[in-house]
């Protein structure tokens, strides 16, 4: 009794110390996750990045200014002119509501942060939350040590950093946290079988549906896992409690979000969950009947049921298949289809194919984005199989599916990141477990008697005997051991020494499992190498965060021989628009710049990044690809006053509109057949030099980009395309230049009003005849201009 009391005292103290250390480590992980994302704020300024975050920022501004009811019913008439956009019904409200409520809470506590500051720092805060959620999830799968390792890996993984730096105010910033947290609650329900956690799981799934369109990943992965458990014979009542309430509550909650609405019950993305819902009820019923009947009667029941049930279910399935097959896309949405069949988008929906983040990733991007984790993941998969539990099979399934999807679209590397971190955390934790155990068991032998080279066998055999004694302790004290493992300080060695002195107490000798014990030097070297590996990972992550992923892309910098050059042309152009045009003036540009124009310049745009109306975008694309007069007609019919083009030829900015021109032609030609792509190609290439086709040299995009370009250096050398342009001296007849930014990156033109008097041949004064004569001038088999 005294001996056990003795062990109880130090062990509870050790437990308490381990708990405090764990909490402290988690706090540090949160601080790390927050601070590694602040490079862009330090290097540039606290500004919103890219394109999509500007839309979210504008919506959040509206929400904070007008309140939630106006936000819910908001019809935006300043984009997609003249169609407008129903914001309340087409936006995923999770991010804006989160940031809005944070702003409201801070302001009600009299901390006067501006909306922009809250928006910029939402992503780092939620990445800290995501790291803690990863800790909770991995703790449910494998234990606290694996949890802490996975959390610290996720805090730094470059793929997640790329979408959640300070300023990247996009859906993924909160969605990844919601994803991991939902998975954690699902696994917790699976492990404990408590309805309370099932309710929380449904509510967390609701938050995920509010935040991101990727929620379909959850509602298909969880049924897949349930099916896997049933098929591998791991059905239990906890599985039923984990899954069935989630489906019902989850479907209801998903229908509450206006973006999803009735899609929650009518699109094919959700049918998997309903199918598995039916299957799990059938399986549960079978198990119940098996429980109350005798085996003979159960066999009779089975034969009866199988014959009748098979006939009925065949009929039902036939009806269902007929219903689904009647829709042309079999009920799936375009984006989901392009995930399942990677070639779908390039064949049918060029807009989806044109977005750069929808392209498949290259091999180097795996090593850039998840670095060292790429080869720790297979070790983690193996570690999950010994032993295999419901939770570890779920994590393996999550990893496999996310690897497939990350191979389809580079943007989905983000979904792979948490899975890779969990797997690597498990692998690293198991490796440390083995190595430190080897050192711990062999260290007293080294300390008591000096090491003898030939004695290694006896040492290892003694170590194995000790291992079987220690194992029974280890099963009870696994929590404390795993808590102390990730400290990675020298304190660990001394603590293990004092633990050995305590653990010489006679053991219970319950399960004498033979544990793996490696030679001492090998384990010491291996631990050192693992720490070096972690060091490489940290160095790479910090480099990636600082150099590769912190660019706000609204401000560009370059290092020339005379120091740092800052290109702030975009904001210069939007500010000019804001101050020098009327509030109701319409601005036309390619859809990339729509969100920024409405948010920063506060002017109505024709198309923006939402890309929900392909024909409208094709209209703008056709206008950009047409000669001046036809383009003027198109823009005039849309009430456009100003046209904005981005031109990178003077400074060498490669993402300008001339490089995007092929998409304008393709998308425009997809809807209006008079735009033919071969007209713009010479030898299969888009060229703007002397070899360019006349159609290319006459189109609006060429003219607006290169107007007066020859005045810059006398030779009109385009730094991006690296040639001199074809047509250098020309005048604009229907547009006039009103503003060009400092580095010629953004050029704004105004539509000239139609002339009062027409010189030359007498033409009928009606505008319809003017367009019909212009149509006559074109080639014979063209379509009539649809706006006249």
């Amino acid at each position: 009794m005294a001996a056990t009391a003795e062990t109880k005292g130090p062990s509870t103290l050790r437990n308490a110390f381990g708990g405090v250390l764990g909490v402290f480590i988690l706090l540090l992980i949160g601080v790390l996750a927050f601070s590694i994302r602040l490079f862009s704020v330090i290097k540039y300024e606290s500004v919103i990045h890219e394109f999509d975050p500007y839309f979210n920022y504008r919506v959040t501004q509206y929400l904070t200014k007008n309140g939630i009811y106006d936000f819910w019913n908001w019809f935006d008439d300043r984009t997609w002119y003249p169609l407008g956009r129903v914001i309340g019904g087409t936006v995923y409200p999770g991010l804006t509501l989160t940031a809005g409520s944070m702003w409201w809470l801070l302001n009600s506590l009299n901390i006067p942060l501006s909306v922009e500051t809250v928006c910029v720092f939402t992503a780092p805060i939620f990445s800290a939350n995501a790291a803690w959620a990863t800790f909770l999830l991995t703790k449910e799968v494998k234990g606290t040590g694996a949890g802490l390792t996975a959390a610290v890996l996720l805090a730094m993984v470059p793929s997640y950093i790329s979408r959640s730096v300070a300023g990247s105010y996009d859906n993924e910033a909160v969605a990844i946290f919601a994803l991991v947290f939902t998975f954690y609650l699902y696994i917790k329900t699976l492990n404990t079988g408590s309805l309370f956690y099932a309710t929380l799981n449904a509510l967390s799934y609701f938050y995920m549906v509010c935040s991101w369109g990727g929620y379909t990943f959850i509602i298909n992965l969880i049924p897949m896992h349930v099916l896997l458990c049933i098929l591998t014979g791991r059905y239990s009542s906890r599985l039923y409690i984990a899954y069935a309430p989630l489906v019902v509550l989850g479907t209801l909650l998903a229908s509450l979000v206006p973006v999803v609405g009735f899609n929650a019950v009518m699109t094919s993305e959700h049918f998997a969950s309903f199918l598995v819902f039916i299957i799990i009820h059938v399986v549960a019923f079978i198990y119940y009947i098996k429980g109350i009947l005798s085996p003979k009667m159960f066999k009779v029941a089975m034969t009866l049921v199988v014959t009748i049930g098979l006939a009925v279910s065949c009929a039902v399935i036939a009806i269902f298949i007929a219903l689904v097959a009647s829709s042309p896309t079999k009920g799936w949405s375009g984006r989901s289809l392009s995930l399942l069949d990677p070639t779908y988008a390039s064949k049918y929906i060029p807009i989806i194919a044109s977005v750069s983040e929808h392209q498949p990733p290259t091999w180097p991007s795996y090593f850039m984005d998840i670095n060292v984790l790429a080869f720790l993941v297979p070790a983690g998969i193996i570690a999950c199989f010994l032993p295999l539990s419901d939770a570890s099979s779920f994590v393996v399934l999550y990893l496999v599916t996310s690897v497939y999807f990350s191979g389809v679209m580079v943007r989905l590397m983000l979904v792979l990141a948490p899975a890779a971190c969990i797997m690597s955390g498990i692998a690293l934790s198991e490796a440390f477990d083995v190595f430190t155990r080897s050192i711990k068991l062999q260290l007293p032998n080294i300390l008591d008697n000096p090491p003898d080279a030939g004695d290694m066998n006896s040492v290892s055999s003694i170590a194995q005997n000790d291992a079987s004694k220690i194992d029974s302790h280890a099963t009870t004290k696994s929590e404390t051991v795993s808590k102390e493992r990730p400290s990675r300080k020298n304190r660990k060695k001394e603590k293990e020494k004092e633990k050995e002195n305590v653990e010489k107490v006679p053991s219970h000798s319950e399960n004498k499992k033979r544990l793996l014990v490696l030679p001492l030097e090998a384990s010491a070297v291996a631990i050192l190498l693992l720490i070096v590996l972690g060091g490489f990972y940290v160095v790479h992550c910090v480099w990636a965060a600082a150099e590769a992923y912190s660019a706000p892309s609204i401000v560009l910098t370059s290092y020339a021989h005379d120091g740092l050059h800052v290109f702030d042309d975009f904001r210069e152009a939007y500010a000019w628009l804001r101050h020098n045009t009327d509030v109701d003036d319409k601005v036309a540009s390619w859809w990339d710049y729509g969100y920024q124009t409405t948010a920063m310049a506060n002017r109505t745009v024709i198309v923006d990044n939402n890309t929900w109306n392909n024909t409208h975008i094709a209209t703008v694309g056709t206008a950009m690809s047409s000669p001046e007069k036809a383009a003027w007609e198109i823009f005039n019919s849309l009430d456009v006053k100003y046209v904005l083009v981005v031109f990178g030829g003077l400074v060498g900015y490669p993402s300008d509109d001339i490089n995007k021109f092929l998409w304008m032609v393709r998308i425009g030609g997809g809807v209006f057949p008079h735009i033919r792509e071969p007209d713009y190609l010479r030898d299969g290439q888009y060229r703007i030099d002397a070899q360019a086709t006349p159609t290319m040299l006459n189109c609006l995009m060429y003219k607006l980009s290169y107007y007066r370009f020859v005045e810059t250096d006398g030779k009109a050398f385009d730094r991006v395309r690296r040639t001199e342009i074809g047509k250098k001296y020309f005048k604009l007849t229907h547009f006039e230049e009103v503003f060009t930014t400092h580095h010629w990156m953004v050029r704004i033109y105004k539509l000239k009003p139609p002339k009062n008097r027409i010189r030359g041949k007498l033409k009928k004064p009606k505008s319809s005849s003017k367009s019909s004569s212009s149509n006559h001038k074109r080639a014979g088999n063209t379509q009539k201009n649809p706006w006249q």
Partner: protein
Amino acid sequence: MAKSTSSDAQMLIRSLRTAYAATPTNLKIIDVYVVYAIVTAVIQVVYMGVVGSFPFNSFLSGVLFCVGTAVLAVCLRIQVNKENKEFKDLPPERPYADFVLCNLVLHLVIMNFLG
């Protein structure tokens, strides 16, 4: 062949009935509640077939609520059933409290969605 199957069926039904009669009363009450919920759902579906599916959100909320409360009652039954070894060490009030909480959330959602 048919006679043996029909006699098999009768034996099956009889044995089912005797086995079910042995379940304790509180479980039978929960079972009655489940059957009631499912019947209500079926009635709503039939009504929808007769009258048409507008407004669809009200139909969905009604049917899914019945199915949902049936599922929750089944979960309650699983946790209250004394033969289930996994839930032996739960305090007896816990399953009922969870059931009430989950139903509360379900009611909230339904009332919002009913329109």
